């Protein structure tokens, strides 16, 4: 049995978080973790819905110390909560909201007693302890569980901190716009802070002005962990921002242009992270300098026919990746979109993500996506559709530009010009939203 500490901060006075009231030391954090752990009910599984990132981190730590498993479903809709309860009937919810967020037994985040120092020993956790189960939405509508062991999570975020150059003598503060309940925010805003000696900001900023306020509330150096959607809004708002040492982006690919704008306007370095729920994060790149991703230490890719598998490093068992990955050198690869996105029209195959990339590379296109409608069932070939945000452009010009790159079978019909794509809060384009868009717009256009 090998043991790994809960956090890696060197001194009881190390700052582990910033709240509205000020800095939280490791000493205070450990005292609050002990208080909360003593209050946890008997159930072995926890749905941690705290919206304050510091409280989330105390809830996670208390659960780990008490040997309980934190469940992280994609979105706690009533149906998903029922499915999570079917997976773990003893699940209870930890919440810091006065509202009753879900239909589960619940524990209100307590008011903490202050000034009780107690032990400053950092709890040591068995690296094989299952501390979390992350769920993916699953192609059939039933969430798929992915268990996470402590040792693998720690190894992953240690590698991330190394790649992001955050293992410095001067600790940074990590400000996240992404929720800690999703894999990316879980790893990059909570676990990485714990295992790189850095501090996390309690804030969960939403509007650009919130992001500015959350940045200004903590001392430099600051690290902003975000997504393309939030970064785009932040740039568009044109606010004067405090100094940001590093910006981290994940969840969806960032265009080279947006990456350059972020670095120029924020006087910062932008790093993109690549990973999956199954593997955790496995690679990073400095997007303004290279299209190539660099794998985390020990992680290896192997090509097996049409698919690519990842293993080694922190990855617990070999995982077949859902992306079109082209290894280009030892430790490096290029990403060409998701395998699930492959379309086959009249025998010709193309990756939807690479079509999206082509579309978004056309000068004047702000955002755009292809969409493959469901097969109609009759003998007619189903055609791709696309929706595009391109102020000042018209469909014939866009089609002419696309025609230069792709076989005519891949040209979209219809091509809808829209003011924005129906992206969700993580920046992804749900198929259902595209379906709805084309259903309403298609009917209108043909009427």
């Amino acid at each position: 049995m090998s043991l790994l500490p809960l956090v890696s901060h060197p001194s009881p006075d190390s700052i582990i978080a910033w709240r509205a009231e000020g800095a939280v030391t490791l000493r205070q954090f450990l005292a609050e973790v002990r208080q909360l752990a003593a209050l946890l009910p008997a159930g072995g599984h926890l749905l941690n819905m705290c919206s304050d990132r510091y409280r989330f981190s105390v809830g996670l730590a208390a659960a780990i110390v008490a040997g309980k498993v934190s469940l992280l479903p994609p979105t706690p809709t009533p149906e998903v909560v029922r499915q999570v309860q079917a997976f773990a009937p003893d699940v209870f919810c930890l919440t810091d909201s006065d509202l009753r967020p879900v239909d589960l037994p619940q524990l209100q985040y307590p008011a903490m007693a202050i000034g009780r120092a107690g032990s400053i020993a950092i709890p040591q956790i068995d690296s094989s302890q299952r501390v979390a189960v992350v769920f993916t939405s699953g192609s059939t509508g039933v969430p798929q569980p992915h268990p996470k062991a402590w040792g693998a999570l720690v190894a992953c975020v240690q590698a991330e901190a190394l790649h992001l150059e955050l293992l410095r003598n001067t600790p940074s503060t990590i400000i996240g716009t992404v929720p800690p309940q999703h894999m990316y925010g879980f790893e990059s805003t909570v676990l990485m802070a714990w295992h790189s000696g850095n501090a996390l900001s309690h804030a969960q900023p939403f509007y650009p002005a919130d992001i500015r306020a959350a940045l200004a509330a903590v001392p430099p150096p600051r690290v902003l962990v975000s997504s393309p959607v939030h970064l785009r809004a932040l740039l568009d708002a044109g606010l004067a921002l405090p100094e940001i040492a590093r910006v981290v982006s994940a969840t969806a690919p960032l265009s080279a242009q947006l990456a350059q704008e972020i670095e120029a306007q924020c006087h910062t370095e932008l790093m993109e992270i690549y990973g999956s729920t199954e593997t955790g994060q496995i690679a990073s790149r400095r997007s303004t300098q290279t299209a190539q991703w660099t794998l985390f230490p020990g992680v290896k890719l192997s090509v097996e026919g049409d698919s690519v598998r990842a293993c080694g490093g922190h990855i617990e068992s070999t995982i077949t990746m859902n992306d079109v990955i082209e290894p280009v050198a030892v430790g490096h690869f290029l990403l060409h979109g998701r395998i699930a996105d492959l379309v086959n029209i009249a025998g010709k195959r193309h990756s939807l993500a690479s079509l999206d990339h082509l579309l978004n590379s056309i000068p004047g296109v702000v955002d755009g996506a292809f969409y493959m409608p469901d097969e109609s069932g009759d003998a007619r070939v189903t055609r791709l559709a696309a929706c595009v945000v391109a102020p000042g452009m018209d469909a014939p010009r866009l089609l002419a530009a696309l025609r230069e790159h792709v076989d005519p079978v891949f040209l979209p019909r219809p091509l809808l010009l829209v003011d924005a794509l129906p992206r969700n809060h993580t920046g992804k384009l749900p198929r259902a939203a595209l379906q709805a868009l084309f259903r309403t717009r298609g009917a209108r256009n043909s009427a």
Partner: protein
Amino acid sequence: MQINQNPTASSTAELQREVAALMVECLNLEISADQIAVDAPLYGEGLGLDSIDVLEVALEVSKRYGLQLQSDSEDNKTIFGSLRSLSDHIAAQRTR
């Protein structure tokens, strides 16, 4: 510096129409501005806006009315509760 801030201001019907038109234009809604009921919810089952829509509208509102929306209180959902609440917030906080 706080300019023209009037926390008790309520919005006029004219401002509400203006904000409705802003939302329709900014979000490319498939309805006309006068189809947005003043007190119908904007989130979820009403107009069906999501958080990305809210970000888009917030950006337009900040450009047109010179105010920055912030969610440091519990106001976030309240402000975007309805066309009336959003318009009232703009009436109270606008600087132009």
